């Protein structure tokens, strides 16, 4: 029986790859359908089984992409290269997720090497225990400078990091007092770095974490009902055990992987869209002692995740990567990678440089007249070219499959070929009507072939400029 081959439905695989990765081309989707869904999820949860992307190759092939340590565009180009080529999609997606939540920016230091290390830190730790993530974050020079912990001294505390680690990185507003903030700040005194930032006037040398014993406040602190001579790690221990932390981070995960929630400042007054889903994730969190892998396993294997197709707006990085997955470009290092940063900026997202410590506003706030124009025109610029490998593939698939020459089947097949995109009834009926007006596709004569190719190109253009293509 042929059905033995297919263990997971293609559209479900496509959904998983869009959310837990950066989209996929048709052949990749087919490859994954041979595995059981839960097995694919396990593969994603254990990235170390699969080889790393050799993005160092980039600097070997293209000096301009590798040599300039200070140029963010080259590093963001490398990041896009990873998103497109990684065999560890969830690892890369978690790095972007944490970049949204633990938002650290380049703007203040203008110091690229520490930001590159920061993203690598998120990549390495994204699926580990939340405690580990917070400890690594607190020791990260980019973060220390971003939130002034280098100005946080035993004799005079700077509350910035103490406040944000509670408000934005773990528990959310309303779950702690101003004294808790002060005492958290005291516990992080002496956590600083070696090479000073910012770029001007100190230059772009790499910076390392250092604990300055003589600048640490060893006194007794009261923090979240507990008392002791806490240091930063003990504070993080206490934070990680809080149910409020579990609820806050799980809601972030839900917002990023499942369904657009309102913007974070509204969370203390607006209940989650799916309380049941959050409860399930929180249960995993508490049972596994804040293990992100367990929480993500629960999320990705849940029914509510599987049923959540096409209901969150892609962020610009996802939009660009998904488009390039379809076009089949950038499968090897290419100087064009450095351009992708500015494309992404024009769509409203500068990677490695969120607008503030609150991160990017997500969901429908990605879309305004300017960014929508950029998205639509970019997708068309990339895909309205029959010679791109991915587009060529689509044309040939339609050509070689007689059934797809029937107008209705043609539309459905096109939707599959661009990644099993689900569209509204309204859009679908418009596309089918258009296809029916032009009748059956034919490839008999040269002329027929040209007409049919143009029809395929047009259908492709319409699908990728649809409202639905803005969603993931």
């Amino acid at each position, binding site marked *: 029986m042929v059905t033995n081959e297919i263990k997971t439905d293609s559209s479900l695989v496509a959904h998983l790859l869009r959310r837990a990765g950066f989209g996929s081309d048709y052949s990749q989707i087919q490859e994954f359908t041979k595995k059981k869904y839960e097995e694919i999820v396990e593969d994603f949860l254990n990235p170390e089984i699969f080889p790393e992307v050799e993005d160092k190759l980039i600097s070997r092939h293209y000096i301009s992409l590798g040599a300039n340590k200070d140029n963010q565009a080259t590093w963001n180009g490398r990041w896009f290269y990873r998103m497109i080529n990684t065999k560890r999609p969830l690892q890369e997606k978690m790095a972007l997720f944490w970049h949204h939540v633990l938002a650290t920016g380049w703007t203040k230091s203008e110091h690229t090497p520490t930001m590159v290390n920061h993203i690598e830190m998120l990549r390495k730790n994204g699926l580990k225990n939340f405690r580990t993530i917070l400890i690594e974050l607190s020791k990260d020079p980019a973060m220390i400078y971003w939130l002034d912990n280098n100005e946080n001294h035993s004799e005079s505390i700077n509350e910035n990091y103490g406040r944000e680690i509670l408000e934005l990185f773990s528990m959310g507003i309303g779950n702690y007092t101003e004294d808790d903030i002060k005492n958290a700040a005291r516990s992080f005194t002496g956590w600083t770095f070696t090479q000073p930032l910012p770029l001007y006037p100190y230059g772009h040398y790499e910076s390392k974490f250092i604990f300055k014993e003589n600048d640490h406040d060893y006194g007794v602190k009261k923090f979240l009902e507990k008392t002791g001579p806490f240091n930063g790690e003990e504070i993080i221990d206490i934070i990680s055990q809080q149910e409020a932390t579990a609820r806050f981070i799980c809601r972030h995960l839900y917002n990023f992987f499942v369904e657009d929630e309102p913007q974070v400042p509204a969370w203390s007054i607006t209940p989650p869209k799916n309380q049941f889903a959050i409860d399930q994730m929180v249960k995993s969190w508490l049972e596994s002692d804040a293990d992100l892998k367990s929480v993500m396993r629960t999320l990705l294997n849940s029914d509510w995740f599987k049923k959540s197709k096409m209901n969150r707006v892609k962020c610009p990085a996802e939009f660009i990567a998904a488009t390039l997955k379809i076009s089949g470009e950038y499968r090897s290092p290419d100087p064009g990678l450095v351009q992708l940063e500015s494309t992404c900026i024009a769509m409203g997202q500068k990677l490695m440089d969120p607008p503030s410590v609150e991160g990017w506003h997500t969901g429908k706030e990605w879309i305004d*007249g300017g960014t929508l124009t950029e998205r639509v025109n970019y997708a068309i610029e990339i895909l309205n070219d029959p010679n791109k490998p991915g587009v060529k593939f689509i044309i040939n698939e339609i050509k070689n499959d007689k059934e797809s020459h029937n107008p209705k089947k043609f539309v459905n097949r096109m939707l599959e070929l661009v990644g099993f995109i689900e569209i*509204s009834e*309204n859009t679908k009926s418009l596309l089918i009507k258009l296809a029916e007006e032009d009748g059956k596709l034919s490839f008999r004569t040269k002329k027929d072939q040209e007409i049919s190719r143009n029809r395929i190109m047009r259908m492709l253009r319409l699908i990728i400029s649809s409202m639905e293509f803005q969603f993931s």
Partner: protein
Amino acid sequence: MTTKNKEPVLLIIQLSGGNDFMNTVIPFTSGVYFDNRPLVGIPENKMIPFTENLAFHPCAKSLKNLYEKGKVAIIQGIGYENSSRSHFRAMDIWHTCEPNHVATEGWLAKVIREIDPNSSNPVTAVNFGRGLPRALAAPGVIATSVGDLDNYGLMSEIEKEEEKIEDLEMFKRMYTPALGSGIVMDYLGETGRTVLTGADILAEAPINYSSTIEYSNNPIAKSLRDVARVHFAGLGTRIFYTNHAGYDHHAQEVPNHARLLTELTDAISDFMDDLDEHNASEEITILVFTEFGRRVKDNGSGTDHGSGGGAFIIGENVKGGLYSEYPSLNPSDWLYGEDLQHTIDFRGIYGTILQQWMGIDPHDIIGGDFEQISPFNKTLIR
């Protein structure tokens, strides 16, 4: 040709990177200037003096001519307390009027909200450049951003005109979601359809434009020509925005600053002539600003980020001259011991323009009451 538009119009020219005010308007009688700027200092025999103590950069001839005609108000020492040395943060502050926390609503977006509360005209504000500057962005506010006026709009990448028209027609139908499709779909659909309307409106502008002025071939000249073309089409645009980039002269300042100032001041001068030719001189006021001034002392090749910059208000209705005070050149007055201290808050200049030129109460837009100046001879406020 005359224009239909008699409402006051504001054109903002943003100089990105931090224009070196000290080398644009030079305090040439001060030894401090020459002592601190052995490399980037302008030789006295080259600069263009216009008062007893101040001279223009040699490449700002066009600006000097406009100044002599009384059309340029120079705002000396513009800035704010604890000036940020980060381009991005500093620009953000200028865009949002919020020096103390990160804000998301742009000051001009709030102006658009006042002018067109129902978002009835998608081209009330038009930016020339890629992406929308934060100054023009706020939830629920529509502003149009034009990369290339001659090839503007959705699907501009499609070469065959026929295909493009057909696709746009389909786009419009696809972006008209069925009832009950949800808030996000409705919003997305409305945004898509608004972009289409904006593009249709703007398509008129290049068709009817004719002028004897020959602008130079560089980005700022091209942008100002686009401003002229859209303005003369009478589409109801009240705010134009454009950007002239490259002022971050840490290195090679001498040749690069000269080139930028030539391009900028020539483009402004051509634009003013174009307005004149179309009897529209009295309709537009220009504000030229930058995120900060530069360090007093040069670094051997250029200058680093500083404060106490300068801005210019230019137009037919402007009462030319010097406004506020040139920042103190006495090192003991310097910010952080090395930067010029500002002498007037930028929000007061925004306030001046909003209240005296646009006829809009600035209080809620700039976040308070700030000292204003009186740089206008007359206005269009009825």
